[in-house]
């Protein structure tokens, strides 16, 4: 998860590098730090850096990190020759390295040689059963092959060992959502909220899932979690504000207005939305108005 400041910092660097303003290494390092997937840009600028022998030697030991980063980006962009070349350089420098072995297996994956890649990962895991990255590759491979149930299986096995890996819990939740297994997704988000109660995105995702499942109790709980998201984000999260409005509307429909529902909170949310749109999206303000009206909120 990337914060807004990090996102804008990244965008700034990206624009700078794209327009020939330099700063490629800073950009690549930031992408690495934030674990983002910007493979086409990484490949382009990383390769330029690597091909410039002066800049390359200026990197010192970081040169090898760059080779690894470019190799992975090349695999993602299906530039297998570039990837092979980078891997060869790393193989020469770090013979018998597990880390390079991982790259070799990823190359097999990119080629679609699933069985060979699986064999490579299994043997790497024999020597290193607690390697998280390799265990994750198994999940990624299953996903890439369209074996979603296999991916769920591997991911659950992974989480039994690495139960503090929040990204993995989120990945599992997202896979469940894509299969419309909302109750299972809800369980994942419950785990995440337990581990990281102050992260608003978990509250928001949980509320979204509960709303999707539906039913009065879930709607009421969803409303609470939209409210906590709003609290944790200082009222700035548009999705949570909308979510709150949707919940009020849906609860009103389900209870046929019998429930003396706390209309105040949804009224506040609606007002916050109107204020925000008037300021930041004035041409959409009237559409917002009629939307809220359709939800019977203004």
């Amino acid at each position, binding site marked *: 998860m990337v914060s807004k400041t990090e996102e804008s910092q990244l965008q700034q660097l990206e624009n700078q590098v794209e327009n020939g303003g330099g700063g490629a290494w800073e950009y690549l390092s930031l992408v690495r730090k934030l674990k983002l997937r910007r493979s086409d840009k990484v490949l382009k600028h990383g390769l330029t850096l690597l091909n410039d022998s002066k800049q390359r030697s200026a990197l010192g030991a970081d040169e090898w990190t760059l080779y690894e980063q470019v190799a992975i980006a090349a695999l993602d962009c299906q530039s297998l020759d570039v990837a092979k070349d980078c891997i060869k350089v790393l193989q020469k420098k770090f013979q018998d390295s597990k880390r390079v072995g991982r790259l070799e297996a990823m190359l097999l994956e990119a080629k679609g040689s699933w069985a060979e890649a699986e064999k490579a990962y299994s043997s790497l895991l024999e020597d290193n059963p607690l390697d998280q990255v390799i265990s994750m590759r198994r999940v990624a491979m299953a996903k890439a092959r369209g074996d979603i149930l296999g991916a769920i299986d591997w991911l659950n096995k992974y989480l039994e060992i690495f139960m503090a890996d929040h990204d993995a819990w989120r990945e599992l939740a997202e896979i469940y959502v894509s299969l419309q297994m909302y109750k299972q997704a809800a369980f994942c988000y419950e785990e995440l909220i337990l581990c990281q109660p102050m992260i608003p995105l978990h509250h928001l*995702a949980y509320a979204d899932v509960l709303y*999707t499942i539906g039913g009065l109790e879930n709607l009421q709980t969803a409303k609470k979690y939209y409210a906590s998201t709003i609290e944790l984000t200082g009222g700035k999260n548009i999705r949570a504000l909308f979510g709150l409005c949707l919940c009020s509307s849906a609860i009103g429909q389900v209870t046929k207005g019998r429930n003396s529902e706390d209309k105040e909170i949804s009224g506040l949310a609606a007002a916050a939305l109107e204020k925000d*749109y008037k300021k930041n999206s004035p041409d959409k303000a009237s*559409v917002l108005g009629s939307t809220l009206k359709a939800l019977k909120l203004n």
Partner: protein
Amino acid sequence: MSNGGECRYVIGQNAYIKLILHALKHKTSAVNGVLLGRLSGDIVEITDSVPLFHSSQIGLLPPLEIALIMIEEYYSSQGLSIVGYFHANERFDDLELGTVAKNIADHVYRYFPQAAVLLLDNKKLGALRNKKDKAPVLQIYTRDSSKSWKQAEADRMTTKEPSANIVLLDYTSSEKWNDIVDFDDHLDDISKDWLNSELFK
């Protein structure tokens, strides 16, 4: 007509290109969008499209419900309504119309029985560069009386402007997809315009 069995679909160039550019912008995830238009005799004219989401949370209701209400509110003043749904799967070679897509499509169908579902065909898209083809790089599904979505013959839908694919290729080489805004982008920053009104200017 109570089913989509006899009508044809004509999609405007801008509506078509918006959807493909959206898919190209988010290569690593599924994307979806809605088609706006009207029924004109036995032709469904698709005159515009709105890209919706690109996150892995495409199967969740709240953002979808808000988007659909807002879009209907906006376009009804122009005499247009939601006449179809577009989906592009996460994986390159996945040409299955999944349950999430079908559910959303069913919802659209309830309000517009001649609705079409368009599924991006990545192989056709990739082949455009080498084989100049006028046909849209999409699979088309309509809902017959058996209540299930069936793939229709490719010629059921044409682009209004025959040069649509050429323009698309042009935009692809200039990476025009960077300018596309979808509903997800709007929800993250409401100053972003999901109408993409400046896109083709």
